[in-house]
């Protein structure tokens, strides 16, 4: 059964000045599934992730060539507003980074600037829905007007996920979302990621092989700027095709 493709990358190269960070990558990311990018540090997985919502635009020396299509539309086309794109393609970072504002305002900020709510009642509704989907509503509903920075690390990260989904994105990019979290908070975020794929296409960069194996349906192994192997997560972790993938996931020198 072939699944619907949400994001299609074709011949993508990325340069940082003279450094060739991503080399002619083709990748098709399935709709409403979790895709994991794994690979050693410096392999290009985060760079590639950041291409998907044009976060690399903010780096002067960074140059992206090739095509990245979101539902068939080139996201690097002149007509595309990166800010609008980032509302469709949300992002969660390694370190929880709530705004120094209340829990409520953290979530309400995106919908407000994108004009997604007509009135206070609608905004309240979006905030509650987002926090529920981020599996943190019950923990914060009685202190929505306290600062987001006062939450624990795991709660802050779930707040950031709630903030990311408040703009009703189609795609969620996660760059090592659990690396600053303890095992319990990690399990909660992983459980959340598994729920999120009902409604979103999730792409996650992780250094934890076990996390990739647990949460994703598809895995891409990046090495020296190339996608060495891309396929079903079950296959990658039980019987990968490429010896470099095997070396990496089994913890051998690759």
């Amino acid at each position: 059964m072939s699944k619907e493709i949400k994001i299609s990358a074709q011949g993508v190269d990325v340069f940082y000045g003279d450094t060739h960070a991503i080399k002619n990558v083709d990748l098709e990311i399935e709709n409403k599934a979790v895709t994991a990018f794994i690979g050693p540090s410096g392999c290009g997985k985060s760079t590639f992730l950041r291409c998907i919502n044009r976060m690399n635009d903010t780096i002067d020396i960074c140059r992206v060539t090739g095509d990245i299509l979101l539902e068939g539309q080139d996201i690097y086309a002149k007509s595309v507003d990166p800010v609008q794109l980032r509302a469709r393609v949300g992002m969660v970072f390694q370190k929880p980074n709530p705004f120094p504002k209340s829990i409520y305002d953290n979530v309400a900020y995106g919908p407000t600037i994108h004009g997604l709510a007509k009135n206070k009642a609608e905004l309240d509704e979006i905030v509650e829905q987002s926090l529920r989907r981020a599996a943190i509503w019950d923990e914060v509903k009685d202190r929505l007007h306290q600062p987001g920075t006062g939450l624990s690390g795991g709660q802050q990260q779930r707040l950031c996920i709630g903030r990311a989904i408040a703009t009703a994105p189609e795609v969620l990019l996660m760059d090592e979302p659990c690396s600053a979290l303890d095992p319990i908070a990690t399990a909660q975020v992983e459980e959340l990621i598994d729920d999120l794929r009902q409604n979103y296409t999730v792409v996650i960069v992780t250094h934890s092989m076990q996390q990739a194996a647990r949460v994703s349906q598809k895995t891409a192994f990046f090495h020296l700027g190339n996608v060495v192997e891309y396929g079903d997560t079950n296959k990658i972790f039980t019987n990968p095709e490429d010896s470099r993938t095997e070396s990496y996931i089994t913890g051998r020198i690759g």
Partner: protein
Amino acid sequence: MMDQEHIASAFDRDLEGVLALIMQMGGLVETAISDAARALEMRDTELADQVRRNDKLIDALEEQVASEVARVIAVRAPTAGDLRTVLSVLKISGNLERMGDYAKNLGKRTSVLSEMPAITGTGGALRRMTQLVNVMLKDALDAYIQRDVDLAEDVRQRDSEVDQMYNALFREFLTHMMEDPRNITACMHLHFIAKNVERMGDHVTSICEQVVYLVTGDMPDEDREKQDRTSTDSALGKV
């Protein structure tokens, strides 16, 4: 790529450790089979008793393999080739343990048989069959350690010879029993022995399948031709 070492060298030591246990088990099972066959042929009840006693060592090793594998899975979370290594170790230790049980059973029956008049003519065939299985076991374990799929495949094919030898013995025991009902008790024991040796061959085959799985990640797909017809072919009973 499996020749490459893990960054965590303790992981390599863990895997080498369980493989060494399997080889130790394999050695004990090979000895048990050849001793049991010799005890049967020479009516050596002392050797037969020794085979029965030594089975405890094989059982203990199987338990050791199981607990070691559980520890490796818990601590190392093995993937890909490493995962297939620990899974195959677990299965093969089960195969070897069963083979040890069959050898032990051979020893038990030898003690009974040595009290009875010998059945002429079947000893040589049983010995050849047991030897064949023992060589298959040795080759299967070599194939496992060397990750040699061709050798494993070759051993798998050899199992049909064992099946054919069992068919021939089955017929021969029937003949003896029909000729003289006083042979029935001894022939029943001998038949169980032949059947047990035939089952040992099946366990060797299963070890070979684990070799293929370990190396390729897939179980061998096509079914081997089964030569044991005694359970389906009623004509075999007509002498």
